[in-house]
């Protein structure tokens, strides 16, 4: 038998709903559908009964492929160069940036690296205090200025300190910001220009639906995202947001957050996410 467009339509409707219900953004679903149509229409299969399973298998394979196009090896964070590895964490409000920094600092220290935490969220109530508590718990050097101060100056100070004291990694915490807020997006560009981070990590919330695409796209356009950390995967069990972001900006997912404790950070596994979506 030959796979025809009408077969694809029938089988895809159910699969599309499964993807949408797993928080894969509509745009990503449509892109996947278009790719499947290219690959499958006209394909010969052994029998009519083989059509639906072939389509489903092809869909799963394309999901894994989308998530594996770019990969991020956590070992990159452990590489020793001439000077500290500087990483800035950005994202919209409440996604888990500050908590993620604490988790990553914990992991880095466990790998024998010295970490400096930069409290460059100088705006939100309690932001500096929140990171300071983590710094104290972890025994990390903590760099902060007055609340209301210039975030770029804090980041710059932290990098200067790390260089002077030969520290391995600087993790820069920034304020949550809506991608629609031009002033705050410009502030983020300034932090990047002044602190010159080696890596920009976009911290995204697995609970986010279609807006994940908008967020990732705008942040990527403004500062260039190197890798993504997807949090709250313990809450949004399916993890389709990973696909939305991968489809939107083609950057790898480095880690996923699966809880609030320091241990709750896992390296990303494409096959694991795809299994959860089709579970």
């Amino acid at each position, binding site marked *: 038998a030959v796979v025809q467009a009408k077969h694809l339509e029938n089988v895809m409707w159910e699969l599309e709903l499964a993807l949408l219900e797993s928080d894969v953004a509509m745009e990503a679903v449509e892109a996947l559908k278009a790719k499947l149509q290219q690959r499958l229409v006209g394909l010969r299969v052994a029998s009519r009964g083989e059509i639906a399973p072939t389509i489903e298998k092809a869909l799963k394979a394309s999901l894994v492929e989308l998530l594996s196009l770019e990969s991020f090896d956590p070992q990159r964070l452990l590489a020793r160069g001439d000077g500290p590895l500087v990483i800035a964490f950005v994202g919209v409000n409440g996604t888990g940036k500050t908590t993620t920094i604490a988790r990553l600092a914990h992991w880095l220290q466990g790998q024998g690296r010295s970490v400096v935490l930069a409290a460059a969220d100088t705006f939100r*109530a309690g932001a500096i205090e929140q990171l300071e508590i983590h710094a104290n718990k972890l025994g990390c050097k903590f760099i902060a200025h007055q609340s209301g101060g210039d975030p770029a100056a804090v980041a710059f100070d932290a990098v200067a300190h790390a260089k002077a004291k030969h520290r391995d990694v600087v993790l820069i915490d920034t304020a949550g910001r809506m991608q629609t807020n031009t002033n705050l997006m410009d502030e983020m560009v300034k932090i990047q220009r002044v602190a010159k981070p080696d890596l920009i990590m976009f911290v995204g919330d697995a609970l986010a639906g279609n807006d994940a695409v908008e967020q990732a796209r705008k942040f990527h356009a403004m500062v260039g995202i190197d890798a993504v950390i997807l949090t709250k995967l313990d809450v949004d069990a399916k993890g389709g*947001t990973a696909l939305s972001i991968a489809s939107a900006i083609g950057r790898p997912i480095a880690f996923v957050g699966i809880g609030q404790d320091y241990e709750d950070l896992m390296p990303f596994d494409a096959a694991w996410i795809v299994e959860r979506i089709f579970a």
Partner: protein
Amino acid sequence: SLSSALRATMRKIAGASHISPELVKELVRDIQRALLQADVNVKLALDLSKRIESRALEEKAPAGMTAREHVVRIVHSEMVGALGVPRELKPGAQKIMLVGLYGQGKTTTAGKLAKWFQSKGLSVGLTGADVHRPAAFEQLSQLAAQLNVPVAGGGSDAVAAAKAGLTELGELEVQIFDTAGRHALDTDLIDEMKAVAKVIQPDEILLVLDATVGQQAGPQAAAFHEAVGVTGVVLTKLDGSAKGGGALSAVAETQAPVMFVGTGEMLDALERLEPDRFISRLLG
């Protein structure tokens, strides 16, 4: 874009004296896509569009109304109906408890509500019953200080913090209680929330929901409602680009209306929900 597809279909209807089933099908497909793109729960989006379809096919346009006006009215009535029976917080003495998932804007909303009640001339007290998040009590205290509102609570036990609030701030007309983020599967935290609600006996339990939340809005709202009974929803971060379709599921699962929307980080960024504006923004 979706909104242009919807408008194009509506223009076709505008020219028609009555609507053909094909045109209705086309309209319904466009509405379905708009709803899904706006993060409305998949099943709810399908139900809503089915209802719109059958009404558009079965109901005759009243005399003097064009086919297009008739369809617009059906869509509008179904969407506004999905927002539930509207109800506003009374500007009077009461105890309000805020609950919700992680990072939704509960603590910030507690501050915003305090300011809102202040503007109505009421005395307000803020109690921090989030004993888990680092510097949660510090965050709430700073917001309280900005408003010159007394604050109580903190410590390491949520029930004790709630009791401290009731005792120390009992003289104040409005008492607002902030709680830690939690989710459906965290049994310890769900039990804690129930225990705190039992101690406070709040007049309102408001579910704070981030407008960016997708398909989890419905199931999580249902779990919060089952645990403590949600009486209202606050939809936050509508100043972003998210359409907030998750709010429709939250309303469906809790039978509680969206009482406020958050439109920014500042304490004055709290507004009443305007159903028409919300729905037209949602549909693109």
